[in-house]
């Protein structure tokens, strides 16, 4: 029975369609002004990929910040549960999930069943989020997708504050204008390091248990994933498509809900 999970984030909307437990369609789109319109568009694309029509879907579950606006979803679930369910389907051995999105970062402790045991979030300061990385990319005059690769060339991590986005920005500016300037790769590694210190500090508050996975849009940044490993001193797995984990989890919940009906 085909079901869909829709994750309406502040920057992107993600959809996963499952049919008999298999992923048959998925899409990632920039979120529209109207969450419902964006969700419908992303869903249509995933449906097309799956060769299905909206009427074929038995259950739709929406998650993410804009989930309540998706009127055609039968159920809404918060990202926490969906992330846990999603990663449990992809990597069942994961017990700690670090999700770094555009505006927040969350650490979740997951049990064997894919349920949330504990979680902690950080959303009151841009440091430690994708928005921070985006503003740093602008400051470094470098396209965001290139930051990860560039940072791998670093000899050492430049010192960048992990406590406050504003302080961090000032420090980056001073690295750029220093004579001689701090190498670009070192500054970017320092930026990743500042985020990682903050997020790992958060993770340690609820306890880190292996295996560990990194998801969310920022997980696509290889440099960031590496410093997270360095800070944790443990291996961190990044799933192939780290952005769609919550949508996949929502689809799994839709599947379970469908079964109950």
């Amino acid at each position, binding site marked *: 029975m085909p079901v869909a999970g829709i994750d309406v984030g502040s920057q992107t909307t993600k959809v996963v369609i499952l049919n008999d437990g298999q992923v048959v369609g998925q899409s990632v789109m920039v979120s529209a002004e109207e969450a419902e319109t964006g969700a419908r568009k992303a869903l249509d694309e995933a449906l097309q990929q799956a060769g299905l029509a909206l009427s074929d879907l038995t259950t739709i579950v929406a998650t993410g910040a804009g989930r309540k606006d998706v009127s055609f979803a039968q159920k809404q*679930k*918060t990202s926490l*549960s969906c992330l846990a369910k999603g990663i449990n389907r992809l990597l069942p051995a994961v017990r700690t999930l670090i999700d770094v999105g555009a505006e927040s970062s969350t650490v979740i402790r997951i049990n064997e069943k894919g*349920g949330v*045991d*504990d979680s902690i979030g950080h959303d009151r300061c841009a440091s430690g989020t994708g928005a921070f990385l985006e503003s740093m990319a602008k400051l470094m005059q470098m396209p965001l997708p290139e930051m990860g690769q560039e940072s791998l060339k670093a000899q050492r991590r430049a010192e960048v504050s992990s406590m406050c986005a504003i302080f961090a920005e000032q420090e980056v500016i001073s690295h750029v204008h220093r004579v001689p300037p701090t190498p670009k790769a070192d500054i970017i590694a320092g930026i990743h390091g500042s985020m990682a210190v903050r997020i790992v500090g958060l993770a340690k*508050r609820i306890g880190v248990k292996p295996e560990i996975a990194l998801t969310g849009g920022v997980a696509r940044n290889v440099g960031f994933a590496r410093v997270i490993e360095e800070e944790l001193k443990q291996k961190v797995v990044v799933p192939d498509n780290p952005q769609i984990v919550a949508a996949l989890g929502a689809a799994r919940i839709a599947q379970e809900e469908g079964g109950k009906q």
Partner: protein
Amino acid sequence: MATATQDLTRFEKAVDILDSIYRHRQLTPTTKADGIYYRLILEYNRRLLQASKEGRQIAGYGLMIPNELLHAMDIVPLHLEVGSSLMVTVLKLYEEVLATAKGLGMAVELCSAHRTMAGVHSQGWVPRPDFVVWCHTICEACTKSGEFVRDVWGAPGFFLDRPFLDTEEQLAYFADELGEMVAFLEKQTGKKMDWDRLKAVVAESYKCYGIQKEIQQLRALTPSPTYNRFVVQNILIEWLFGGTPQATDFYTAVRDEMKQMAAEGRSPYPEKFRVQTIYVPPMFSWKTMDWLQREKGATLVGDPMDARWQKWDLNPERPLLSLARKVFAEPHGYTMHGPVERAVSACVQDALDTKAEGAVYWAAMTCPQGCAMIRPVRDGLKEKVGIPTLIVNMDVNDPTVVPESEIMEKLEGFLETLEERK
């Protein structure tokens, strides 16, 4: 510092609004205790307005000052922190008031309850206190704020020194301090303390304490026969009316309603989750408390920092020493004044007693005390009870810092976690 000029236009408006809320409640009654609560809040403010018009003396008093002394001397009380916050909440004056505080040079990192108070008092928006009494329980913001109010009104003041611990020696010292406070009040009012009256007031206070302890036990029942909004009502009634017959009336009604529900084996709404609430929730959003219970089935079964009383030994013949002991038994002062182990053990024991499945820690972002306790409390609950704690960043008074919708979102996610842990 420039002296404030009293302008009660806004205060009168707030009283009018409280009056309409009370009348609305009478037309659409909910519970008896709810009705008493709204009446008392109205009466408290009306009395102040009346006293101001009649030229009766008003005492400004800060957090943790024992009301009983003012009550025994028939002095009209104006609570510095709660009085201002209540008015600002009713009239939704956050922005204006906090901007005034900023104009006075108060950094946004300072306690917002005290910035609110500074904004309100410096503009003269509450009845002028003729004198001010305050202490350093529970934080240094309280210490400085009392001085601020004294100076802004050019009024005489008394600083009550509350010792850190409650050894017999320190309790005796504190009782002497309370005696000094009585001497100050006598000087300001020209009246002598009627010690027999004070004994009766303290006895009334002790009676009320007994009822509060009963409520604490009733809350721990499964299902818990408690309304979530009691969390906020309890804080306000204890701080505004502690030790008065009005407080006894309120708590008696709460207890009796709870007993009735307990006899019927029910809670006000079907109970799905049992949650501990830690510290002061957002005062601007009672809706969140109601929503949690009505729509999500989450009952706030325990409130270790505001409703879990420690043992209070009354000595009827020594009212000041008895009051000194009460200040240390009072849950907010007991847990917030330190050492932090007290807060941790109160939360842990309360979670065990109430069979809480999770805890919500209201992290007032401008409160150094409250925020410093998050980690030990969270770890304590996790290690000793095995339950998770949700940390909700917020401001007690200002909804623009973290909006209601964001708070609800976090709570919803947390309840999903609790659901999965079942």
